[in-house]
């Protein structure tokens, strides 16, 4: 290790501080003047500074060998569990992201949660949540990662269910936990499958670095890699909200807004993407695995965006947007875009935190989540407006914002993948582009609805009526969308019921206080430079050894990894598979730089080495390291992206530019809207397709396993396929799956209710049942042989 990297030794401090803070807050928080929040913020600030130092050192020194340390070991059943730290660029990047967002969220929460009953508890949980995520981030082995992963799940359960008085929130917490827990066990199985494969070669079977080395050396059988990676990916699908296990994510909006920001930006949802990136050299061993990841990712990015269009709840818009963006990240990883994927993870963390905190600021002022209750807010809350706008632009990929660099980098890596004859690349490219258009459209719609036009105030219905209530009514068929739209329209035009200043009997909307605004402004400012980390400025500064996001996060293993399934892999592996076979990330990297660079292409020029390789790829030479290096400037891609952006904004302006319309067109698209918007209609499918058949027809005949979650999901999907014939492609909507999950949970409860009656209370019946069991056992296992 070079000198100057001593800070890496203290990475454990970053992890430990939030934990200590959580304990201290839990123990003494109530006695403190600021109810414990000062401890959390102070600890997080120290952790943040430490991470910055670590981040800077890793950044400045380029790809370095990871610092791997073990602090204590514990044998379990012949295996060794180690707890320690594993610090490289990827870790450092996550440390910076998590601590930054967490710090700002805590600051923000001081004001947002002011006066809440369990303020102290909330801060303890925030610290614990951050701690859990950091345990995962610095894990040197898969077991420690699982520990962190599970802790994240438990903490999220307690935070999402924070507002426990409403049953829907509790249901949301339950759903989030159960869905991710289901996936978690996939992770557990995957880790064990990999470890069994590794155990043939080394004793340290859970070590991430050794697993990667073995995988790259081709020592692991392809079955091990495929099964292990797919199971681990199942865990990531659950945690990172990929379809079809994303259903928990929109529901998780039930938690307080700062929690949403933390979950969606820095912790929890990023865990899946991070973990796939962490084991990336293993994943790229098999094309099957890559394709599965890419397919899931691209489905998620494309379909989730549509759902955001029809939401009225601003947090749900952002939630579906997160799902969609996570789809981008996964898709990028699936098409070889290592750097692109985690770069998007990084930038998205900042601007999504910004958007959530901004929406929280709005909600704080309006006491409503619904965009239909807002309007004209730019006059009341100028700071919020500006920051929210910046966040939206970043999310939409407006040039020079963070999202612009990262998203285009994804598109370019997809294109390079396609150039190698891998069809997934084409899909990711075009659907990704279409997804960008959708993203821009719904963000523009939100901006117009919230900040432009006249303030509509909280409508005539009782202000206590929450989104959850509306959904409940819709689910029960009380409202249909038409009626809802008219209702809103009427509310907007009826002077008695929509006071423009009265705000449901409250005060006029006002700008939030300094703590909220600080967080917003900091994040808004950050939304620009984090994108620049992607490349070009640093080239100029660093000279020949350019420093950028790629060199930062490229781990030692990534540098050497190759794609065994690409043509040409053979020769290279014969050569030893070393040397110049730098990773695709390099490609995307240079990519990102080159492509979006339209106006900046000079500055975006990549370093000399990458340029050479780029030339190779441009010539169409096929080799397994072909993705390394930047292609020619893709003006076409850039233009396409820009056109998409402008078209979407124009479309949104045309529809919403003059404020809230009586008939929101997205809510009046016939069957399409019916599918997208009418939750009750589609829940109905889930209910009719899953619950009723199981309950009324299938129940007696269905085997035990049919009552559990997996089967419920399968049946839910089955019901969806039927619908597909009738309606349009939109029918592959998460709401069917949602209904399926609910249906499975419902039928488990139903069975549970029936089964308990076996316990009749009559001891002689117990005896009879027991004897019957014995007879069956004897006949089946003894006599039948």
């Amino acid at each position: 290790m070079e000198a100057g990297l001593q800070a890496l030794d203290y990475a454990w401090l970053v992890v430990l501080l939030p934990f200590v803070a959580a304990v201290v807050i839990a123990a003494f928080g109530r006695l403190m003047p600021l109810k414990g929040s000062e401890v959390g913020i102070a600890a997080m600030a120290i952790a943040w500074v430490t991470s910055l130092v670590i981040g800077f050192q890793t950044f400045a020194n380029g790809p370095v060998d990871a610092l791997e340390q073990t602090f204590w070991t514990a044998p379990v059943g012949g295996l060794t569990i180690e707890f320690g730290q594993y610090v490289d660029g990827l870790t450092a990047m996550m440390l910076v992201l998590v601590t930054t967002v967490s710090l700002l969220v805590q600051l923000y929460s001081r004001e947002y949660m002011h006066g809440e009953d369990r303020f102290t508890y909330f801060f303890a949980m925030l610290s614990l949540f951050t701690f859990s995520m950091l345990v995962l981030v610095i894990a040197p082995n898969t077991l420690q990662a699982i520990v962190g992963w599970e802790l994240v799940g438990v903490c999220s359960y307690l935070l999402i269910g924070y507002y426990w008085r409403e049953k829907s929130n509790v249901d949301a917490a339950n759903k989030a936990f159960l869905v991710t827990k289901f996936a978690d066990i996939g992770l557990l199985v995957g880790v064990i499958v990999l470890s069994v494969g590794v155990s043939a070669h080394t004793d340290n079977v859970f070590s991430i670095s050794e697993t990667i080395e073995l995988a790259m050396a081709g020592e692991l059988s392809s079955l091990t890699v495929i099964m292990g990676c797919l199971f681990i990916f199942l865990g990531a699908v659950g945690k990172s909200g990929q379809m079809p296990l994303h259903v928990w994510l929109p529901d998780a909006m039930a938690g307080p807004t700062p929690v949403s920001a933390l979950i969606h930006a820095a912790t929890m949802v990023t865990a899946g993407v991070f973990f796939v990136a962490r084991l990336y050299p293993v994943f790229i061993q098999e094309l099957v695995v890559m394709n599965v990841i890419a397919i899931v990712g691209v489905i998620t990015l494309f379909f989730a965006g549509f759902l955001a269009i029809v939401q009225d709840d601003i947090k749900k818009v952002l939630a579906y947007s997160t799902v969609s963006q996570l789809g981008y990240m996964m898709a990028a990883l699936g098409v070889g875009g290592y750097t692109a994927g985690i770069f998007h993870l990084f930038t998205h963390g900042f601007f999504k935190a910004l958007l959530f905190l901004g929406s929280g600021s709005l909600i704080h002022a309006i006491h409503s989540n619904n965009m239909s209750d807002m309007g004209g807010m730019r006059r009341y809350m100028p700071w919020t407006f500006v920051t929210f706008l910046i966040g939206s632009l970043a999310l939409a990929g407006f040039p020079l914002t963070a999202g612009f660099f990262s998203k285009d980098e994804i598109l370019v890596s997809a294109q390079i993948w396609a150039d190698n004859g891998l069809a997934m690349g084409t899909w990711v490219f075009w659907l990704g582009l279409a997804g960008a258009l959708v993203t821009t459209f719904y963000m523009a719609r939100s901006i117009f609805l919230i900040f432009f036009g006249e303030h509509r105030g909280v409508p005539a219905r009782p202000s206590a009526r929450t989104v959850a209530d509306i959904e409940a009514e819709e689910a029960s068929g009380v409202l249909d969308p038409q009626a809802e739209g008219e209702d809103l329209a009427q509310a907007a035009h009826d002077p008695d019921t929509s006071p423009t200043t009265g705000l449901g009997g409250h005060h006029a909307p006002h700008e939030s206080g300094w703590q909220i605004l600080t967080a917003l402004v900091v994040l808004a400012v950050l939304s620009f430079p984090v994108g620049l980390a992607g490349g070009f400025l640093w080239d100029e500064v660093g000279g020949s050894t350019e420093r950028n996001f790629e060199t930062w996060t490229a781990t030692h293993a990534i540098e050497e990894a190759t794609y065994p399934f690409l043509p040409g892999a053979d020769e290279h592996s014969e050569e030893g598979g070393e040397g110049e076979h730098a990773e695709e990330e390099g490609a995307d990297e240079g990519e990102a730089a080159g492509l979006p660079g339209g106006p900046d292409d000079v500055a975006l020029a990549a370093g000399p080495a990458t340029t050479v390789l780029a030339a190779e790829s441009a010539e169409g030479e096929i080799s397994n390291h072909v993705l390394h290096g930047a292609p020619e400037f893709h003006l076409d891609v850039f233009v396409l992206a820009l056109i998409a952006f402008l078209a979407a904004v124009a479309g949104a302006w045309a529809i919403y530019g003059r404020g809230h319309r009586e008939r929101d067109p997205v809510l009046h698209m016939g069957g399409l809207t019916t599918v997208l918007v009418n939750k009750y209609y589609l829940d109905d499918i889930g209910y009719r397709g899953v619950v009723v058949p199981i309950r009324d027809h299938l129940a007696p005949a269905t085997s035990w396993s049919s009552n559990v979650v997996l089967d419920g999901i399968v049946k839910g999907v089955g019901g969806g396929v039927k619908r597909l014939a009738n309606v349009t492609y939109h029918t592959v909507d998460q709401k069917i799956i949602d209904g399926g999950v609910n249906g499975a949970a419902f039928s488990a409860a139903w069975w549970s209710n029936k089964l308990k009656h076996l316990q009749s209370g009559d001891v002689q019946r117990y005896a009879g049942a027991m004897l019957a069991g014995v007879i069956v056992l004897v006949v089946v296992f003894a006599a039948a042989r």
Partner: protein
Amino acid sequence: MTSLDIVFILVAVVTGGAAVMTVTSRNLVHAALFLGVTLAGIGATFLLLAADFVAMVQVVVYLGAITVLFLFGLMLTRAPIGRETLDSRNRPMAMVVSAALFGILVVLIVRAFGSNQFPATEPISSSVADLGMAIFSTWVFPFEVVSMMLLAALVGAVLLARRQSGDSGTETRVTPIREALDDSTEELDRAPAELGSGGER
């Protein structure tokens, strides 16, 4: 088929018949007496099998003590008489289950120990001396453990059967189970309000 077998069949018929009467009789005292007959029949079977000592223990312990104990039990609890009061609603289930088990057992036993492999032989027993040697050498540890178990059973039986309910006669009462967390759960049928005699503290 030896003469011993013929005697055994007679004994077995009596024993089995008495056993059936024991579990079907409508009169409690008759049931207990039929139990006595059954136990005596089993003792006779032991004799036929040349297990003299076991037969003796059987007669002393079961006929002499346990049957009497049961008779006391029946009288002390003043149970009524008649099929309705003695047989539970689970009779059909009991019939089916035990008949099924018997059928299976007989088939399995005949297949496993049919007379082909096991022709009739003269039963050979260990002497009482051998038995004593075996118990106090090979089986001495279980023997000692059983003594502790018997002590515990004795203490426990006295404790439960005697009248007072505790040192001070008070017990914490069982609290009624409170309302459900989720509405899907059915009401617990009986409110146990009337339960638990001891006072609350």
